[in-house]
């Protein structure tokens, strides 16, 4: 009886959980689905809180439908819905046919916004809602209650010297009312390339300057304006447009426009923002841990607004899963486990984004008090990195692979830290070294090599966009000026990495560079010809130093982040002068700009607008600068970032190991942005030193660092490695240290665009995206390593093979087994296994000559996965 009772309680709890009924202590307003479930509801929906999110949930404002730039069927909504004024205008306007209004308060059910999605009239987008449903009722109530729009924030109430509110309203008037008239009736003769009578209407300045007949308008005075006299056809010789007089409504619009002072929509005009500010979006539960007994969980999303209102917005929230092989989710928030692993569910509502961690262990977690706990062998990890990694592995029930061999470690760390293969002598020395801390010692040794600075300079050049073509003007591209400037850029960073300048100082010097290059500063980051507009510069700064992608917000609210067009426009305005002039970095006027939702900056005329951004970035609490770099460094070692992709820090893309990222970031800052400290922490961890060989638990894991994931060697490293492999014995050091002739060194810029670099994915550095570097293996790469003239040249001109020929000519005997050993050590950093060695010896004996045999052997080894992968 007792067990039946317990079972009943358990079922009740489970049912409550599945249906989201754990609201008995809830302090939030019920969901819209409940409040509008009846058609006679007295509730009044809010435009921003309910109507726009509902349209988003129904897919109306998606890029495929009315959110596209052309709209759909003459009806356009802002993409992802954050331009409340424009959306309200569209929703309350007449349809493109001009016959029916989209919202008809007098005959609500005839409103197109109800008739279309219910397919009462033909709708290309199909049936989106049912008559009588809560969604339908909500829209009905909105129209009934007056179809009010968003509450626009009085952004400029306190006065903004350079951009009074009236200007914004005027700009909106211009864009929506005046510009269509000009485009339809005037631009044919006075727009873009046409300027009849020397009059152009493409900018306010040109309009005011007028044409051959004098100024076209007198601001504020339509009666004295030539334009009005012309469009009214008041004078026989001055009738515009010549095709016929404009209707009265259009004349009235033009008159009103001139009375308003001829406002113009300047570039970088963002939509007005709402006064309703979403403070937080809280999921219930905050995380989901599936087990075999509970494959389903229902999510609830609670929105908290600045005015204190809390509301269940689950029914208005869009959901997505970041990995549908782990979890799927229905539109109403029911999450269903699909397989083991960890990922996030993401909820979008208004401009809020909430990520909910989801985890399903691969194997049930072993309790630490159980004798056969799989985690016991590594629970005492010394390196804090491993503590964070192991904690998560415990949760997932994953057992990490064992530590890799010394040969694997040396090759791996040499490539990752210095972009260079170890020399045969180095391999032999390391293997013979009996000391316990030889790996740590090797890391320290590598960090002090110039090749470390060279390789990481190359990476910093990737992140910051050091591209010879983009630095130069067209004329300079015609010569080699771009290459020279790119080399100077490389050298500038190299010098700082060689003396281990703190990362924040390096960034600061780049950010605040004198644009004339005085006092040893590096101006080319700012003077790149590819940065044509301030928005380009803004995106470049955000990508290079903050690890965020702002470009979506240029045109619409960012779909996966909280950035709005307003945020983007304000951030871009910081860079107007520097981008426009490429010589001056001082603000032209007083400006008050939001700094990526981190407060407001007031700039005086003459201030360097880059300085407050740099000051903000260097603050210890800044969420981007240090984290972005830490994550990129991590991604370089593991082929996957803690945040992946590494340059997409968004709430919808949370880190796989948030505590680890926090700890490394904090440590990096506490250690005064010491890059070597960061490299050391990572490369001395067990997580980094694990074998690539999977065990029975971690074969499927690619995200939790339970084993090494083999990754293709970067383009520059492959180029250098081939050269090193074929070089003479006494040139081994020289080919590694002569940066003038290394692809990770000074050749980096000059080799960009060559076939070899393209095939292996060296980035052009022309995009604001870490994805520009391609690390994936391709068929073309195999063709390259097998047949390319470069590979053939390297082998044909191999100094090492010539060395062998010389030795033979001198009558020295060649030990084939020894040759095989050397070939293996040179290419893959280990000695061959017996079977491998036997095959090689047989081949060398059977070859026409030793040099032919060695050429074959080197070719074969350079075509192995083991050579091309870092493992």
């Amino acid at each position: 009886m007792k067990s039946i009772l317990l079972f009943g309680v358990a079922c009740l709890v489970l049912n409550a959980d599945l249906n989201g009924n754990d609201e008995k202590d809830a302090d939030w307003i019920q969901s819209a689905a409940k409040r509008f479930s009846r058609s006679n509801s007295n509730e009044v929906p809010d435009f921003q809180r309910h109507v726009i999110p509902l349209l988003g949930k129904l897919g109306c404002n998606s890029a495929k439908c009315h959110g596209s730039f052309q709209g759909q069927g003459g009806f356009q909504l802002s993409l992802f819905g954050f331009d409340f004024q424009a959306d309200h205008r569209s929703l309350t306007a007449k349809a493109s046919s001009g016959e029916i209004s989209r919202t008809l308060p007098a005959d609500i059910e005839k409103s197109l916004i109800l008739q279309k999605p219910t397919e009462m009239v033909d709708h290309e987008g199909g049936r989106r809602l049912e008559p009588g449903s809560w969604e339908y009722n909500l829209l009905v109530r909105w129209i009934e209650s007056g179809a009010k729009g968003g509450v626009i924030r009085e952004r400029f109430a306190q006065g903004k010297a350079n951009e009074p509110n009236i200007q914004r309203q005027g700009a909106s008037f211009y864009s929506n009312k005046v510009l269509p008239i000009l485009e339809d009736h005037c631009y044919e003769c006075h727009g873009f390339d046409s300027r009849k009578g020397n009059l152009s209407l493409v900018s306010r300045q040109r309009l005011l300057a007028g044409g051959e007949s004098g100024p076209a308008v007198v601001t504020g005075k339509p009666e004295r304006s030539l334009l009005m006299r012309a469009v009214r056809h008041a004078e026989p010789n001055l009738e515009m447009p010549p095709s016929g007089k404009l209707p009265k409504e259009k004349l009235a619009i033009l008159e009103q426009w001139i009375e308003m002072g001829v406002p113009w929509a300047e570039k970088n005009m963002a939509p007005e923002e709402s006064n309703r500010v979403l403070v937080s979006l809280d999921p219930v539960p905050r995380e989901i841990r599936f087990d075999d007994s509970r494959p389903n969980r229902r999510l609830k999303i609670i929105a908290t607004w600045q005015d204190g209102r809390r509301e269940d917005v689950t029914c208005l929230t869009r959901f997505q899963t970041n990995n549908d092989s782990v979890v799927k989710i229905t539109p109403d928030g029911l999450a269903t486990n699909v397989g083991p692993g960890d990922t996030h569910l993401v909820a979008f509502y208004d401009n809020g984004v909430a990520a909910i961690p989801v985890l399903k262990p691969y194997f049930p977690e072993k309790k630490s008090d159980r004798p056969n706990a799989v985690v016991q062998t590594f629970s005492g990890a010394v390196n804090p990195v491993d503590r964070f990694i192991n904690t998560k592995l415990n949760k997932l029930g994953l057992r990490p692979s064992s530590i890799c061999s010394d040969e694997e470690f040396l090759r791996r760390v040499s490539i990752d830290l210095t972009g260079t293969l170890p020399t045969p002598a180095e391999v032999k020395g390391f293997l013979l070294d009996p000391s316990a801390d030889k790996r740590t010692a090797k890391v320290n040794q590598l960090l002090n090599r110039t090749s470390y600075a060279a390789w990481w300079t190359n990476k910093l050049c990737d992140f910051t966009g050091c591209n010879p073509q983009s630095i130069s003007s067209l004329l300079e591209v015609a010569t080699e000026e771009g290459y020279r400037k790119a080399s100077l850029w490389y050298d500038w960073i190299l010098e700082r990495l060689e003396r281990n300048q703190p990362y924040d100082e390096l960034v600061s010097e780049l950010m605040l560079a004198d644009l004339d290059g005085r006092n040893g500063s590096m101006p080319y980051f700012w003077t790149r010809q590819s940065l044509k507009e301030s928005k380009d510069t803004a995106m470049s700064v955000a990508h290079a130093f903050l690890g965020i992608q702002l470009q979506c917000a240029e045109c619409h609210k960012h779909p996966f982040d909280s950035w709005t067009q307003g945020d983007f426009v304000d951030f871009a305005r910081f860079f107007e002068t520097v981008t426009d002039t490429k010589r001056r970095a001082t603000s032209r006027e007083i400006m008050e700009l939001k700094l990526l939702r981190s407060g407001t900056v007031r700039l005086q005329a003459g201030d360097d607008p880059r300085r407050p951004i740099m000051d903000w970035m260097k603050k210890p609490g800044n969420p981007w600068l240090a984290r972005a770099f830490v994550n990129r460094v991590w991604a370089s070692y593991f082929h996957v970032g803690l945040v992946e992709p590494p340059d997409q820090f968004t709430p919808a893309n949370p880190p796989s190991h948030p505590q680890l990222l926090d700890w490394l970031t904090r440590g990096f800052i506490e250690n005064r942005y010491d890059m070597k400290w960061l490299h050391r922490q990572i490369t001395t961890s067990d997580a980094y030193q694990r074998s690539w060989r999977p065990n029975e638990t971690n074969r499927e894991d690619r995200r939790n660092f339970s084993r090494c994931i083999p990754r293709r060697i970067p383009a520059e490293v492959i180029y250098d490695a081939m050269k090193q492999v074929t070089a003479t014995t006494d040139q081994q050091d020289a080919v590694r240290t002569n940066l003038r002739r290394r692809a990770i060194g000074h050749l980096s810029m000059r080799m960009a665009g060559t076939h070899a670099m393209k095939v292996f994915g060296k980035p052009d550095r022309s995009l604001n995206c870490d994805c520009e570097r391609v690390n994936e293996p391709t068929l073309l790469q195999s063709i390259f390593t097998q047949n390319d003239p470069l590979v053939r040249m390297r082998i044909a001109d191999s100094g090492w093979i010539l060395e062998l020929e010389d030795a033979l000519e001198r009558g020295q005997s060649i030990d084939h087994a020894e040759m095989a050993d050397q070939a293996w050590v040179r290419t893959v950093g280990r000695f061959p296994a017996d079977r491998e060695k036997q095959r090689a010896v047989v081949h060398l004996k059977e070859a026409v000559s030793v040099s032919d045999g060695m050429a074959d052997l080197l070719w074969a080894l350079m075509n192995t996965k083991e050579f091309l992968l870092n493992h």
Partner: protein
Amino acid sequence: MNKFFPLLCLGILVACHDCMGQEKETVDWEAEYQKLLKTSPAIKAKIISGQTTRKDIILWLQKNKKGFEEKNKINAGKTVVGKKASPAEDGSFQKKLEDMVRMGKITAKEAADLAGALSQSQEKLSEKGKNRTPAPTSGNLGEGKSGSAPPEEKKEKVDWQAAYEKLMENPAARQKVLDSGATREQVIQFLKNRKSGGEQPQSGQKRNRTGSRKGSFRFYALVIGRLKSRDIELGEMELDVDYVISQRTKLNGDLKGKRVKLVGISGKFRDSLLKLKIGDTVKVRTGDFNPQTGILGFGYKFHVLEKTEPFQPADFGIPPNEFRGFVGTLTVKIMEANGFVLLLDAESVEPVATSRASDPASIQGGRIRIGGFFDKHKNAFEEFKKGDRIRVSVVHRNRESDSLTVGDLLTVLPAK
């Protein structure tokens, strides 16, 4: 540390070495290298950091020595590549002046003044050349740092005539002045403007306004030669020059038969360099030439670096003598469109009255090369492809030149 500092040190050091007459018949380069390391910490640092190597430095020292020897030979009156012979001596300058007068660029009086002035400056140069120590250059490494240094300006009263003379002593500057057709007065005005701040050259690594390397002047040429060596990493090659086609006929002749170095091959053109084999005949478009080092610079915008057939004048559109001086219209078939130059098979010719060709029909059935598709014909050029037939007006202004210049008429004809 300024990147060029060690090179500068090297230059000064080598120059001093040369000045003091300490050269020996056989040089102990290792000792020279060690001495350099002791005297120049900057170079030592570069060696340690791997930015340059011992071998590079020694090679560089050797090249500098050779460079100075060659320059001394120049001063002794011998003609070698990179040294422009006296224009007054070879008559080409006089011819150029005549052409300029005919084209209305300068008056006859201005031409006479210019010829006189140049003759004087040449005499002065010869005088100086006898005892002059060549200015230190940095050879390949420094890409010529001393070539086009502006004249020293004094704050007190400036002798502009002397400044002009001094400017014209510089081969690169002189070539530019000649190219521009500027008069002495115009050049002096330019110098005055520059002194007053209008054209102040900046310190550091600022290059010529044309974008060419410092010490070099613009030299748009098609060079045909046999590949003697190449360095795919530094983007350099050496050619034994078979022929040069450009508007600078004197220089074309100077380069012919010489072994010259060409530098500055980067990006995708390194793939072209990689595919070439030693001994291949190569055609390459250049962008500039350094008269002091005799080094050519690769011309990026023309996109020409490829293997070609062994040089035969007719294949490359070198016009027969009877056709030189032609003015008129050609009906032609395009055989090659590259670098704003067309190589054409001539079908028919229509000379105008002013044509100076003794036998215009001599080109019929042969090949001809025309250039000058920069401005109004630029778009048309980009659409041309092999096999197109066109009717085009051309003028062969300079009979010494191997290339004709496109005129106003340019019509695409239907294929035959």
